[in-house]
């Protein structure tokens, strides 16, 4: 149970306070309702690049990190296809420093050319480090545009290509800030050794004077249902073949989300899960296999990915995966197995309450979904799912016509030379 108080400033900023006096620390988490899905097709990767620029100094404060570190604080941020989330952890006695820094960059950035130039380079290196210079690193750059044809989920948060980042101009940065970074599009959660009354006063003082800005009205093309199997083969310099089968799946607030999430657990959570037990251990067809859902706000992806063991053909591998999916379509998950995945979900939610930062992030996330209080009813929603509902979802999702199969093949002879140099 995560208790909280909630209020809204006149400019539209939503503020939640979670008092936890078991720690001398405080966290400030600010979620902006903007993600890669809000980008223009010709400027992908921008939300994430912008996140980097948020650390390049604001209108009245030349550097962001330094004053925070000076009071014993740490911070970071992440961007997803749906949201951009910034967080600070610092000794509660120095909480006001966080308000000072966060309010100034919500007010306005410094928009420094130097910062833009450097962060363009940093993000391009990030692109290389995480997506291009890693075995299988570009899988999502291939998979997303297979599953999505209309929705902006068809590109990854890092962007479609390096050139989009390279071409970002300071005018683009200013326009993006104006459109998305204002009190109406933000949710702030303050947690730790704090008092709601004090937070109200601090919020009024630092965030109250920020103009409300324009409300961003999201109007994204939704992804039409898929009725034809899609398939692609990529050959790359990797040591093992890899198979991905992706399906369109319910969005975070759509019917069926919880049933599909539990179905993913039945297939792939822990060593007792079906895919691991059957395909890795018993039949020894894969060395590694996973299934999971992306949990996106709009239409999500349910992905099964596995690396077949040596000598197992791609056809065999795909067939083995489909057999497991067919089983879920034909037979209800037995009571014990369903109880097992529910118990696991329940205890995961309990363990996540051990972390102050997790609690604050979760409150912001659920508030954006509609109501932070939903965090405290999350376990109930999973507990209510029946075996029948899971079977129904399996039949809805695991259709060949709803599948996108990406076969990632290990290039054969060309790799020899490179391996020998080690």
């Amino acid at each position, binding site marked *: 149970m995560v208790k909280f108080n909630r209020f809204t400033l006149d400019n539209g900023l939503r503020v939640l306070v979670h008092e936890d006096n078991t*720690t001398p620390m405080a966290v400030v988490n600010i979620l902006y309702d903007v993600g890669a899905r809000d980008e223009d097709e010709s400027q992908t990767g921008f939300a994430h690049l912008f996140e980097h620029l948020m650390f390049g100094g604001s*209108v009245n*404060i030349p550097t962001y990190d330094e004053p925070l570190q000076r009071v014993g604080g740490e911070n970071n941020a992440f961007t997803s296809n749906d949201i951009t989330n910034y967080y600070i952890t610092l*000794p509660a006695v120095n909480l006001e420093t966080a308000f*000072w820094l966060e309010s100034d960059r919500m007010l306005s950035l410094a928009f420094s050319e130097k910062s833009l130039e450097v962060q363009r380079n940093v993000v391009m290196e990030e692109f290389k480090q995480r997506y291009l210079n890693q075995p299988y690193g570009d899988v999502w750059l291939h998979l997303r545009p297979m599953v999505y044809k209309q929705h902006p989920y068809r590109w990854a948060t890092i962007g479609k290509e390096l050139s989009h980042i390279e071409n970002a101009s300071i005018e683009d940065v200013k326009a993006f800030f104006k459109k998305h970074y204002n009190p109406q599009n933000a949710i702030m959660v303050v947690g730790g050794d704090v008092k709601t009354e004090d937070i109200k006063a601090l919020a009024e003082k630092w965030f109250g004077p920020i103009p409300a800005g324009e409300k961003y009205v999201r109007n994204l093309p939704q992804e039409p249902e898929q009725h034809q199997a899609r398939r692609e083969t990529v050959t790359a310099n990797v040591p*093992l073949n890899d198979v991905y089968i992706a399906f369109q799946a319910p969005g975070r607030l759509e019917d069926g989300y919880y049933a599909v999430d539990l179905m993913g657990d039945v297939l792939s959570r822990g060593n007792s899960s079906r895919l691991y037990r059957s395909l890795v251990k018993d039949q020894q067809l894969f060395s590694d296999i996973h299934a999971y859902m992306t949990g996106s706000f709009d239409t999500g992806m349910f992905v099964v990915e596995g690396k077949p063991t040596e000598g197992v053909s791609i056809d065999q591998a795909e067939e083995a995966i489909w057999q497991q999916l067919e089983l879920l379509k034909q037979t209800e998950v037995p009571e014990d197995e369903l109880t097992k995945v529910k118990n696991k979900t329940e205890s995961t939610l309990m363990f996540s309450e*051990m972390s102050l930062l997790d609690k604050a992030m979760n409150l912001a996330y659920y508030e954006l979904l509609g109501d932070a209080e939903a965090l405290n009813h999350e376990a109930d929603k999973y507990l209510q799912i029946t075996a029948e509902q899971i079977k129904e979802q399996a039949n809805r999702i695991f259709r060949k016509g709803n599948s996108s199969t990406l076969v990632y093949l290990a290039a054969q002879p060309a790799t020899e030379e490179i391996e020998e140099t080690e």
Partner: protein
Amino acid sequence: MLDRTLAPHFGAIEHIKLVEPKHIKLPNGSNLYYFNSGEQDLVRIEWVFGNVRFNADRPLLNSAVITMLTEGTSTLTASQIADKIDYYGAFLQAEYGYDNSVVTLYSLSKHLASTLPVIKDIITDSVFPESELQTYIRNQQQKLQVSLQKNDVVARRTFNKAIYGESLYGFAGDGADYQQLQRADMLAHFKQMYQPSNCDIFLAGKIDDEVLNLVTDAFGASWANGPESADISQPAVKSSNELFYFIEKPEALQSAIRIGTRSINRSHPDFPALQVLNTILGGYFGSRLMANIREDKGYTYGIGSGMSALKHGGALFIATEVGADVCRDALSEIEKEINRLKTELVPQEELDLVRNYMLGSLLGSLENVFSHADKFKNVYFSDLDYAYYDRYTNVVKAITPQDVLDLANKYLDFDKMYKVIVGKY
């Protein structure tokens, strides 16, 4: 009128309060430490076993045995073990570390009576079934093939091998090493290593009498030592004479760099002060390396320095992945930053910032009862006590720019550092 250019007043971090454990010496020689606090009815229990002496002929035994503890006992199959743990919403990890191998159970307190017997079983009666061993070998070999395509992994392996030589710390196994794993060797290793006299148990969470009784019943008098005690001594570490390693990857977009030197570990009096120096160099987001090589030059997504403190040695190292075309520039900037620490006094303002950052970081690392247990293990396994943290905070508060400069001259010598580059150079 609000003046946003002025930073709010801030306070110093004065007292950092650590929770000390209660200790029980079990009749079989095992030490049990417990930390009772928290609101949730859950516990984390760790069984920590000292790794057995490195044997170059059977180098993988320590890591293979711990990893395969979940793969079967004389009464439970691997799937029965997994079923029991998962059914009760618990989490079981069996993980290899350089000095110790650790079994960790996260469980709701109410299910401990059901989950604990499984742990007892795997710790006292693992059998390493042949078929599971073959699956393990095959899957590990495949995973290794993927890891070896990652430049940062190759750099780390090469670096460790250079500074730690043929030892648990330096060993970098290949596919053939997995192939030679034998069930009989694993059983013998298991019998020697996994016994009470080589085990420390750490409990953290809501620990009431019932929880304590469950644990002491299962792992106290009913768990006996074998005839032979575990040999956890280690051969002396021998570093390589060769300092420079370049592994070419013609198609690399980035080069992985790892540079460093053997160094002191936690029990050395200079250790806390050296941590201050390390933090200035590359230990936080605002560090000199980050400020120069990422935030000024944009050569990398990230660069940092770190210190590893192991039982039989330590290292100070810098790690990064940089654009392949700027690899040499990045190296020369790293050298510049190291030399600057040796020739110029750290400005008082920067040092004050680092002090506060480090104290805030220590305070923030004490997030919950689990982190208090982790802090204790840090000193416990270095044969230190809580006085270490007092000394640490005192050093961080009192260290002067001259001290930092002297330390840099004592411990940092770029020319004598091991340098590994994987990619293009």
